[in-house]
């Protein structure tokens, strides 16, 4: 394998006439300069843009005034979709001390193959495309984003950033480095592999429902 490394780098070197280095100053400057490309513009407020693009990607949402509205919003969603009251919840601080209704089966863990409903918290939302960004970690198992049929995601409104580049800036500022999986999720899973007909729910969630929380203050 190291022979291949030398062979490949040798040929590149010959073609480009460089002395290859991982820390060449101009390369480091380019990598860490974080210069942005052309930024798409829009007229509406970021919140409106986010919701419009989310809807375009077949995602739905409910607005809640505060943390206290979570149970109500989830109850409404389950009732509207005729779903069982059995939810797999991310071990996230924002979801930790919710008092779920009597008789509900709520477990805080990674997802399993037979989980119908997953509930997690987004790191941020991206207005440009109506996307959610989720970061893997102890409080956000990635399996929850993909295995359940219905994916519910809490997004505090003040966590909506304009563009993907703003999400990177936020991530660098708050976390320093990337987690194992950084998921940018836009609407439910879909496929067009059968006769170019769009069908939702290929392998990932069939439905994606955002709980947009207006005030971040916890009750």
């Amino acid at each position, binding site marked *: *394998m*190291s022979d*291949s*490394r030398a062979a*490949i*780098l040798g*040929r*590149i070197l010959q*073609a*480009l006439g*460089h002395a*290859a280095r*991982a820390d*060449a100053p101009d*390369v480091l400057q*380019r*990598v*860490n*300069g*974080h210069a*942005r*490309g*052309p*930024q*798409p513009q829009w007229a509406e407020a970021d919140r409106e843009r986010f919701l419009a693009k989310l809807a375009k990607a077949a995602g739905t949402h409910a607005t809640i005034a505060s943390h206290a509205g979570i149970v109500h919003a989830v109850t409404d969603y389950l009732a509207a979709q005729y779903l069982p009251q059995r939810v797999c919840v991310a*071990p996230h601080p924002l979801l930790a001390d919710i008092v779920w209704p009597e008789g509900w089966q709520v477990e805080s863990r*990674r997802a399993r*193959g037979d989980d119908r409903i997953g509930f997690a918290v987004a790191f941020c939302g991206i207005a440009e*495309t109506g996307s959610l960004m989720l970061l*893997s*970690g*102890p409080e956000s198992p990635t*399996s929850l984003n*993909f295995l359940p049929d219905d994916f519910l995601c809490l997004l505090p409104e003040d966590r909506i950033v304009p*563009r*993907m*580049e703003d999400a*990177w800036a936020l991530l660098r500022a708050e976390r320093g*480095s*990337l*987690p*194992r*999986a*950084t*998921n*940018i*999720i*836009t609407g439910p*899973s*879909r*496929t067009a*592999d*059968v*006769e*170019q007909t769009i*069908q939702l*729910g*290929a*392998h*990932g969630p069939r439905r994606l429902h955002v709980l947009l929380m207006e005030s971040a203050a916890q009750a």
Partner: protein
Amino acid sequence: MKPTSHAFSDNARRALNDATLQQALAKAGVGFVDKRRAALSELPEFDALREAGRAIKDHTLANLDHYLLRFEQQLVTSGGQLHWADTPDEACAAVLDICRKAGARMVAKGKSMVGEEIAVNDALEAAGLEVVETDLGEYIIQVAHEPPSHIIAPAVHKTRAQIARLFEDLHHQPGLTRPLETVPQIVDEARQVLREKFLAADVGITGANFLIAETGSTVIVTNEGNGDLSATLPRVHIVLASIEKVVPNLEDASVLLRLLARSATGQEITSYTTFFTGPRRRADADGPEQFHVVLVDNGRSRMLGGAFHEMLRCIRCGACLNHCPVYSAVGGHAYGWVYPGPMGAVLTPLMVGLDEGRPLPNASTLCGRCEEVCPMSIPLPKLLRELRRQEFARGLHPPRSRWALAAWAFFARRPQLYRWATRLGTRLLNRLSGGRGRFRSLPFAQAWTTARDLPAPQGDTFMAQWQRRKQP
């Protein structure tokens, strides 16, 4: 897979006479073209992004060694392992070695064109492992034992009825049939069957649309979520990537992602865009314990700095296929290898050899639509012409066309003789047509005359007329 690009003419003829294929192609073509056009019309910044994207790729390729080493360093820092592979065989050996060491029996695979290029499924199956393609399109062609016919829609050549029949034969025990007619029924069936595989797989293999030098991350862009399940549930995650996929940082990837989704499917962004950085961290609740990247060259470093350098900008969006009149008429299989359409007509001869891929650069009208729609502004017609030039220089043309060209060149270099010969030819042909002015059939020109008449030359040659009319 064993290439059959040398047989392009036969492949194409068969495709043109295949009514089911023609039906599938007719349905697909317009869809892609319309969706892309609509997406572009909503983004006034597209041209600026296209310029920026091209500049990012040009800069990265000009410093490819630096960025690959930076990527390697960051990948290793985040706990991943990098395997350099010069050839398809080395790449397959690396994958197999990882699987063996992990004691793997089943592999869940997300879509990877590099995987097709190195034929990793064949290698794994030959070693006794079970490999399951999990992208619906890839799964369909895997169970049909066919290669992909499009780089982003591998089963675009299949009709719904064909897919339903395949699934019925494969999944349904006698007396245990589910209705399988509509698109939702077909997709649901695949969802159920493949879910078991994700949960049971020991190793997940995915491709990579980009590699990020800044963070050592690999990026996949999907709609189904199968790539993410393949990368999250099994114990080991292997990424197959090629060397030209690296970009400097996350901002650069953001520019290219905007171009890729719109050019490929007409989406602003796909359902899932995921950045993988290393294996699971100690406190993580899920994710693989090992994260490997197999970095494949397979002829790319030889393209660097040469006549085909610009092809390395390709982001595999498929727009050139969707807009190609030849691809739209004959489909992907006629091209006889992994990459079809204009980009394939350039890449195939470079990767499998000019002898095998010879017909592909010639199977183009050079109409220029591919270059027009390419988000990376790759001059595909120029590259195809360069391949034709090299092919001729190496004497790979069939003897008949070489003799014909040589004969023409002999006369063309001798104007007097040329004029005399064309005058003679004109008169002869006119006489032979019996004064009717056209031929019903003509030896050596049957390909033309079976479908239409060939007009016989009327009157005199151009040069003779010109000479005459110049006189007052």
